[in-house]
């Protein structure tokens, strides 16, 4: 296993290869967080790049008592939340360019179609949430962090995280209920009402 603290120390001392190793190790989680938060591939890439530039400039402030992953996700989270707050007047539209997570090329067309549908469903649910709820959901589901770890990453309390998760879920359920009233046969509702689409592993 890569010793992140050692890599961080080496990068701080000017070892470019060590920093490259850190970027390579964390580009996936950072990009995914940015994509789930911002909703488009172009913005996610820009945010991921900016996160790593900030990491590079702030390496001397890294506290080895913290997990390196928490520190880097914290920088990415704050950047994405700030970015969403700045653009609040222009809410994310599902009509904007979106690129689904890449699937293996040999995947069957119908599987790809289902995956794309699920993806659109997920991004649609995330997009209607306030950024403070969205980031908690992303850290909980994609980064598998505990309440305490999410609280440390976002600099808040465990009880605040529990409350935000609860409200986020409630908000998503209400959103689905409202949508079901207008479009009774959309994807997730079909699953809820028993005509389940197969779930991907």
């Amino acid at each position, binding site marked *: 296993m890569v010793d992140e603290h050692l890599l961080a120390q080496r990068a701080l001392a000017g*070892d470019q290869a060590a920093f490259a190793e850190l*970027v390579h190790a964390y580009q*996936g*989680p950072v*990009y995914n967080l940015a994509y789930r938060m911002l909703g488009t591939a172009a913005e996610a890439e820009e945010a991921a*790049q900016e996160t790593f530039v900030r990491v590079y400039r702030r390496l001397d402030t890294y506290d080895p008592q913290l997990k390196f992953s928490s520190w880097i996700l914290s920088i990415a989270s704050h950047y994405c939340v700030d970015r969403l707050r700045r653009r609040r007047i222009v809410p994310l539209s599902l009509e904007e360019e979106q690129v689904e997570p890449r699937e293996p090329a040999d995947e069957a067309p119908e599987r790809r179609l289902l995956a794309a549908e*699920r*993806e659109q469903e997920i991004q649609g649910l995330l997009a209607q949430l306030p950024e403070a709820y969205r980031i908690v959901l992303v850290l909980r*589901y994609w980064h598998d962090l505990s309440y305490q770890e999410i609280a440390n990453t976002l600099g808040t309390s465990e009880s605040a995280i529990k409350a935000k998760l609860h409200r986020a879920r409630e908000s998503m359920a209400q959103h689905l209920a409202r949508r079901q009233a207008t479009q009774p046969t959309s994807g*997730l509702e079909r699953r809820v009402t028993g005509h389940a689409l197969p779930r991907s592993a």
Partner: protein
Amino acid sequence: MRCHEVHEWMSLRLDGCLPAAEERQLEAHLAGCPACTAAWAEWQEIASLFEGAPLALPPEDLTAKVLARVHKPRWGAFAGSVIAMVAGLGLLGALLLWPLAGACSAAMTTAQMPGLLGVMAAALAQLLETATLLAGTGRIVLLALLTPHSAAAAMGYALLTMVALMGWLRMVSHRRMPRRGAAGL
């Protein structure tokens, strides 16, 4: 037990964080509350949707782009420093050269006069005149600064300059050049 409390427990249960005692109470409530049962089914569906979601994969050249950004020379900051230095030197030069210009001009004029003693005396006299003029100017400026209004303005100006200088130093220290190490890519 109210439905709102049940929803809080539902959220904890989805994360596997609901204690066993509360879980039994939740089950009991769900058994008698069709609205919460329907909500619980929906919450579970949403959770399963998120749990099965794949990680979005970054573009293959992301690492290369990041490294290109952090390791490129910061010419903007460098050019800014050079411009600031040249402007500062220019201002200082203008302030110092102004009184000296008179003396130099007098020296040039007197150098054309016949007789070394006469030339030296004229140059000395011109220098003394310039020094007297500078001292007089300094005295006037000092007296002006010592009046209450001017002193306050001067202190305000000094304070403003210090704040601007500290801001500049902070900006420069945050945008320092990347350190170069022994290892390369």
